[in-house]
């Protein structure tokens, strides 16, 4: 345990696992939580106050789909009144103009709208819903409100060749921020990984394109992109380090150091209904499990980069190495890096039908993959 513990900076409020979409890359756990266990408004309100008192600056409202909560306007108001900056991470469904106005009036700071593609048929295949048209409507309504707007495109093999169209969509909107988030392999994305990983050629082309566009649009639109870490040389500093910057509260009130932590066996999580947020942050066994350096294995233990990337992601180490304390296998220095290389080799052998390195059109029934779609829990 470190001698000085900094306070958490962001609270990820996973308000519900209910969602009208069924995206094949969803980062929710495979075991989705039922509606009956969702925390009521009053408990979230207390949690927001405790978060602000503990030094938290930002709340990220997410899920599932946060708009599925009937009390979402009260929740925004409660978080803002507690002194938090309020981010809404949403698909844009279900929403009408009246509710959008109410959210903004209640103090919403940032509206991050997801897009599953630039084209309706791609988006509808990936989400197994007819959601694209609604998102375009929401994008239009947002022009009339004073909130920060980010469009988030989740990128993978099936839509990585639509970047130009995605950018055109953003440029014709009021959004000043765009995030091209390559899928990360947890939850449902892990289950669908074989059909989601882009080829090396697709990735290289996208990085070149986005770097040029970043420069062209500098000062007008901020472009952020994250490449899949399987293709990286070093791992990401996941969550800014375990238990260092962020805490996530699940729909039933369990406090987790990250989205996927429940895959790690032997961790027990405390619940906000039983203990204060500050106490959980400081004293919970789960939060302390991978703080400091004592838990590290080699090569992390003596690596020059350990204070930069903390050995990568614990959940990814569990998923790929079977050991949450192992070096994240995406690291080029990890003993298990060859396993990731083999996964990439398979992804780069997969047949592509049209042109040089172009993925087949997403809606083509002959080449559409057998997706595992995320259900909507009751």
């Amino acid at each position, binding site marked *: 345990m470190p001698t000085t513990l900094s306070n958490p900076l962001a609270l990820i409020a996973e308000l519900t696992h209910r969602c009208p979409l069924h995206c094949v890359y969803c980062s929710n756990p495979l075991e989705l939580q039922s509606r009956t266990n969702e925390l009521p408004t009053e408990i979230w309100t207390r949690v927001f106050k405790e978060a602000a008192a503990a030094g938290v*600056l*930002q709340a990220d409202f997410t899920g599932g789909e946060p708009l599925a909560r009937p009390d979402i306007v009260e929740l925004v108001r409660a978080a803002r009144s507690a002194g938090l*900056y309020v*981010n809404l991470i949403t698909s844009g469904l279900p929403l009408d103009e009246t509710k959008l106005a109410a959210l903004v009036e209640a103090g919403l700071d*940032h509206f991050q709208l997801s897009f599953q593609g630039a084209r309706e048929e791609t988006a509808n295949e990936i989400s197994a819903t007819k959601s694209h048209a609604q998102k375009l409507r929401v994008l239009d309504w947002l022009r009339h409100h004073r909130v*920060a707007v980010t469009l988030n495109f989740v990128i993978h093999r099936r839509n990585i060749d639509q970047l130009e169209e995605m950018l055109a969509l953003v440029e014709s909107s009021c959004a*000043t921020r765009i995030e091209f988030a390559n899928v990360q392999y947890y939850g449902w994305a892990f289950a669908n990984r074989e059909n989601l990983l882009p080829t090396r050629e697709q990735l290289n082309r996208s990085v070149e394109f986005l770097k040029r566009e970043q420069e062209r649009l500098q000062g007008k639109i901020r472009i952020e992109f994250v490449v899949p870490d399987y293709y990286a040389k070093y791992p990401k500093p996941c969550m800014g380090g375990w238990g260092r910057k962020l805490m996530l509260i699940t729909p039933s009130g369990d406090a987790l150091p990250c989205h996927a932590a429940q895959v790690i066996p032997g961790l027990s999580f405390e619940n906000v209904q039983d203990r204060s947020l500050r106490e959980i942050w400081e004293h919970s066994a789960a939060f302390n499990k991978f703080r400091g350096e004592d838990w590290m294995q080699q090569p992390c233990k003596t690596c020059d980069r350990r204070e930069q990337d903390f050995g990568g992601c614990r959940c990814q180490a569990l998923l790929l190495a079977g050991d949450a304390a192992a070096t994240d296998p995406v690291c080029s220095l990890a003993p298990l890096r060859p396993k990731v290389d083999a996964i990439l080799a398979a992804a780069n052998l997969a047949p592509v039908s049209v042109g040089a390195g172009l993925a087949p059109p997403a809606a083509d029934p002959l080449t559409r993959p057998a997706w595992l779609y995320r259900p909507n829990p009751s």
Partner: protein
Amino acid sequence: MPPELNSRPLLAPGCRLGENNQQRVLLMPERALRLNGPSLEIVERCDGKHTVQQIILDLQKIYSKAEPQKVEQDILGYLTLLQKERAVDFESGAPL
């Protein structure tokens, strides 16, 4: 491209000042910038009323011991950074 001297910087929608544990911050989507000394003085003047030139003059007065040219360069650099982050827009013409 550095901002024009007679333009008026304004905090962009969804960007606002905040405070925690006596530390002033600039809050924006999923990020926060710590504000101390000059950065705080600059951001407080991003109100759509102060021109870039006025901000430079104000800070040259406050930081009278610093070289005026350096103060100007630092301010222009910081405003450019804030615009890149999309935390600040520049209005030209009559003040709001």
